[in-house]
């Protein structure tokens, strides 16, 4: 049930992201097979796999992947090393997939500019969510319109489209909707939203946040007092629900 919901959410509007070339590097063949099947089943059309650093590099050279999913421990090197080499040839978003949940690894991975880190074992939906989030974040400029219940969001032009009407989004509204969209279907905490809109020291903006949310609802909801797209999770935060749920 959860899985269908997720498939629906993820497959609705991001088909352009499903066309991205994804390189999966893991030394375990069966795991490669599993992850590749999860991805293809999800609709990702271009997935290729490699078992070693050398294979991965030669594949990357020829194929120019747009997302790398890397295991940390590889037979002829490690994922961090591989990522630096891949990055040497061009910027590429990367997500680490590893059995090593150690804190140091995590910091090393993020230090190299890894976009996310998934510790094994993981649920398929967890992996798919992370991949989708990384892709959305990395290729946001290619972002098409996002469909909500009562309108469409045009992130490229920072506008809300309601029928023929075009409502511009303010900078803060744009930041807030961006943070919510990147985590679509999930709760984003009040603190997370304040941080997205006001930066590192986001104390004392809760009232402003409420005001902004109210204004966003006026733009995107059919009935702002009974929201269906931008939901309040009392005490915790807000959740953006995309059309088709």
């Amino acid at each position, binding site marked *: 049930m959860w899985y269908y919901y997720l498939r629906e959410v993820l497959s609705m509007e991001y088909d352009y992201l499903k066309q991205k070339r994804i390189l999966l590097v893991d030394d375990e063949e069966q*795991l490669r097979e599993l992850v590749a099947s999860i991805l293809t089943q999800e609709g990702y059309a271009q997935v290729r796999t490699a078992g070693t650093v050398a294979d991965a590099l030669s594949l990357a050279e020829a194929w120019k992947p747009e997302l790398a999913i890397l295991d940390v421990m590889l037979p002829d090197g490690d994922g961090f090393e591989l990522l630096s080499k891949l990055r040497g040839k061009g910027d590429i978003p990367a997500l680490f997939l590893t059995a090593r949940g150690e804190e140091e690894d995590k910091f090393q991975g993020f230090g190299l500019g890894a976009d996310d880190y998934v*510790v094994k074992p993981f649920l398929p939906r967890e992996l798919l969510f992370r991949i989708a989030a990384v892709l959305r974040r990395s290729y946001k400029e290619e972002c098409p319109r996002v469909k909500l219940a009562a309108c469409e969001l045009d992130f490229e032009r920072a506008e809300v489209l309601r029928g023929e009407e075009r409502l511009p989004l303010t900078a803060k509204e744009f930041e807030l909707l961006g943070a919510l969209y990147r985590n679509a279907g999930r709760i984003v905490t009040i603190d997370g939203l304040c941080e997205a809109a006001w930066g590192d020291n986001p104390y004392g903006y809760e009232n402003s946040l409420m005001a902004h949310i109210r204004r966003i609802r006026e733009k995107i909801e059919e009935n702002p007092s009974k929201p269906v797209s931008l939901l309040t999770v009392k005490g*915790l935060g807000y959740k953006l629900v995309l059309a088709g749920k």
Partner: protein
Amino acid sequence: MKGTIRLIRRFLLLMVCVVPVLFFLNLAMFIAYTWRERSDNGGWQAAIKVGEELSLGSDGQYHLSAAGQQELADYDAWAILVEDGTGDVVWHSEGLPEEIPLHYSAAEISWYTRGYIADYPTTVGSRGDDLVILGHPKTAYWKMMWNSFDYGMIAGLPRMLLSFLLLNGALAFLIYMILGTGILRSVKPVVQGMEALPEQDVHVREKGFLSEVAGAVNRVNEKLRAQERALRKRENARAGWISGVSHDIRTPLTMVLGYAAKLEEDVSLPEEARRKARVIRLQSVKMKNLVGNLNLASKLEYQMQPVRMEELNLTAVLRQAAADFANEDLEGRYPIDFRCQEGLGACRMRGDRELLQRAVYNVLSNSRQHNPEGCSLFMELWTETGKEGKAGKARIRLSDDGVGVSEEQLETLRSTPHYMMDGGTGVQLRHGLGLLIVRQIVTAHGGQVRLDHGPAWGFLVEIVLDILWPNSGTDTPS
């Protein structure tokens, strides 16, 4: 080391107190002893009395009355009467030693009255113008021959006594300090060594009168360090083993989990098969959590998990943990009600964000685990003002309205150590790792955990942590 200095100071103080006490004690004893000395010290009264008891008879001879005789007998003394002018002895008592002269010049009289006649100590009296001299046994008195002092010296006596006392005191103090410092110098390294023994590697020089003790300290040190190394090695091995096992189990578990999830959503399979796949998936998720918890718990227990302290907002940590939990709850069976103290925006403290988030998440998932049918979760946060400059406290109350625990289970949870920390193999001790981690994390932050029944029913976990702000009710964050 402070203790040793305190000891020396105490001894010094004791000495300072003891010296005056001794002084006064001696004075008192001297007074008590001399008090009994009669005022007619040296038999002077006796000489006067004998003079009074002498009478000149009609025969021109002197007679001593019976009382006078008795007086002489009492003092075991002899007496002579020297006539004024002639210097002749005109009367003497019976038993006068032969060596006593019977004629005296004025110079002799001035000498004898002051001192001795033939080593007999003398006292003098008078009878009219004549002189009565009493001679006492040779060992009866010790006479001061030149009994006069400079006036200046007597006048300066109090000052002199005082300076004597001060000088004595200072000297005693100096001697004590020199001795004390000497002792301290040999004791200090040994004491410092002993004090440092529990924390660090210690080596004390085996020199001086405490060399044996120093040697013993060094031996204890070696033994302690060896034990510490062995323990550390064992703990590392244990944690390393757990970490290794959990690492090795992760990849196969990923496949179990992944394929179970795929089978579960494969519509071409019969319903029964998909239901079984769901069970596999749910159980695999449990194993996944167990693996993670086991690793973290062992690292926390053996202090191998770095606690990265930073200033954070506890409210945000709680919200994030609750949001992570709620994001997993797609079916909405575990609604969370988060309530914050009225007007509390941020609640700042120093702590490890990830670990605290993990602790709160663990409490929430503990409720989920024990209430598979679903339940409501309640999360409350309020702060208490610190009194007298102490840190304020944040009280986090996490409760559910689920099945709860019995009184016995609660008692077991509260009092028995987790099997991981206990050598025993008692099966009854085995309870979830989740709450153990909560306790470990909170303890690492200097806080407390309380387990109880929920307000109405269900289970309750209360976490108390020190916070930086608000430490008073009305301040606003800067």
